[in-house]
């Protein structure tokens, strides 16, 4: 468990944050640029020292009124926005740099190299690597110091779309294989939906909400549910495959999604993204429709979004989802809290 209580005043900007980050899984610090996310991360790593900060990791105080553990004595792995490999060292020597100075336990160099698939690059200089390869090497380097917590500061933001999609599978892998908590800073909803288990929503230097991502993204009192690209993330398990039509069958507590695409290994957990604008509502179950995914749901909340639209929070057997409807439709269907409806998902994406 990471307990952070920071009160930082920095040239007109105030970061006033009090949050507990769970010691497993990926916690995303999500918010617009300039909201204080990077300052938070740097303070956790000890790269910035401010008075009025309290930081405790797994029962060990790293900073309070009297104590300040210097950065090189904090067991963190830090991945910066740019890869920042040492240009005077080979990839291998970059990874060994931190490893030699760590206690030598945890993820070994070989494991880190395997996890990020950089075995072929070890002898090269950073200048001979693509941006994506450099960032993978930087992640391996951060893992090899046996951190108690991995801090990632928008690790994909310096990469173009193609390189991002090259790195994302490795992040999924970290998510599955790492036993340490990860704090992931991002302003990209897509990235966060893909990698995070917990979401700390940060705006203008304060924590607006924190909790499991499925909940925070769909809370109607928070900004993400009202964005154009508002979405729900739903965890499901691969339960079968329809060979004839090429549909992956993915089970979740509310039923079974059919998603066109290649087969997924049975029993594998997957994460689905369901955009609010792709969900429509009916009062009766439609039968003659092209839509495959229809689930009974109950309206758990409804709020106006902008001038003309409403966002509906749905409870599909305990799973939260959002639907974006026009004010007119909301009125025509008589949507109100407690109303039973059918949610039709026009499209759903497997994101990891």
């Amino acid at each position, binding site marked *: 468990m990471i307990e952070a209580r920071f009160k930082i005043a920095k040239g007109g900007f105030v970061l006033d944050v009090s949050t507990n980050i769970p010691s497993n899984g990926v916690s995303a610090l999500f918010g617009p640029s300039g909201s204080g996310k990077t300052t938070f991360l740097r303070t956790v790593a000890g*790269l910035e020292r401010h008075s009025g900060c309290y930081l405790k990791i797994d029962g060990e105080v790293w900073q309070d009124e009297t104590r300040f553990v210097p950065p*090189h*004595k904090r067991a963190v792995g830090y991945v910066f926005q740019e890869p*920042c490999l040492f*240009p*005077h060292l080979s990839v291998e020597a970059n990874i060994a740099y*931190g490893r030699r100075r760590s206690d030598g336990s945890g993820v070994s160099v070989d494991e880190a190299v395997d996890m990020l698939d950089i075995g072929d690059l070890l002898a090269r200089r950073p200048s001979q690597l693509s941006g994506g390869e450099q960032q993978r090497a930087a992640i391996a*380097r*951060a893992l090899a110091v046996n951190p108690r917590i991995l801090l990632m500061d928008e690790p994909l933001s310096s990469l173009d779309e193609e390189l991002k999609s090259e790195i994302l599978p490795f992040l999924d892998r970290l998510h599955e294989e790492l036993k340490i908590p990860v704090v992931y800073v991002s302003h990209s909803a897509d990235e966060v939906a893909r990698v995070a288990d917990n979401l700390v929503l940060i705006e203008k230097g304060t924590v607006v909400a924190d909790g499991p991502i499925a909940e925070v993204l769909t809370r109607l009192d928070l900004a993400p549910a009202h964005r154009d690209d508002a979405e729900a993330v739903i965890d499901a398990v691969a339960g079968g495959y329809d060979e004839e039509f090429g549909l992956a069958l993915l089970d979740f507590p509310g039923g079974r999604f059919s998603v066109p695409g290649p087969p997924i290994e049975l029993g594998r957990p997957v994460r689905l993204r369901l955009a609010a604008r792709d969900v429509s509502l009916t009062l009766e179950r439609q039968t003659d429709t092209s839509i495959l995914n229809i689930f009974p749901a109950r309206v758990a909340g409804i709020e106006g979004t902008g001038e003309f639209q409403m966002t509906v929070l749905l409870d599909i057997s305990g799973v939260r989802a959002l639907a974006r409807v026009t004010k007119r439709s909301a009125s025509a269907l008589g949507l109100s809290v407690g109303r039973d409806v059918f949610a039709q998902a026009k499209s759903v994406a497997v994101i990891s």
Partner: protein
Amino acid sequence: MIFDEASLSAFVITLELAAVTTAVLLLLGTPLAWWLARTDWRFKFIPEAVVAMPLVLPPTVLGFYLLIALGPHGPVGSLFESAGLQSPAFTFTGLVIGSVIYSLPFVVQPLQGAFESVGSRPLEVAATLRASPVDRFFTVAVPLAWPGFLTAAVLGFAHTLGEFGVVLMIGGNIPGSTRVVSIAIYDHVEALEYAQAHWLAGTLLAISFAILAVVYGLNRRFRPVRL
């Protein structure tokens, strides 16, 4: 034989002075340049101005004050005497002290520039990789700033080779002890021995050019690296 014994000894003293001065300057200038590059102190322009003073001061002004300070009655000289040592005026030690001050900006400024261009990010990265401040300095800052060290060492050396006014004021032109090439040339010209003056001056010119050409050539190939 092109050079007589006196000229040879002047060359030896000159090279010895330049080498010792460069070594002392790298030892003292590196921490100073590091501090200047890294500090947020708002009055850092004061030490920066002091370091740059020898660039604009007439060497005789510097030499004059040094002579007073290093002489037997000066603050530094009396300190030496009370420790049972000879006061450094008119000695090789005195020349080294004078040269270190005179060539300070030529060493500190390239080093400071190199450290500044390395920036704080590589050091932060090293800190998150468990490297202590001293460790980060030697394993990250120095290797990344090495073109600056090369420039600093060569400029400090070359500048000391060509020093005249300071040496004349505090060295006393003692053959075999404090008589350097630049002063030997001056003496030859005074005595209308133009042939000897030519040989010495030409050799100094060639050495200085060769050194600077090497430095600029290397710096073209190895630009200071940035992360």
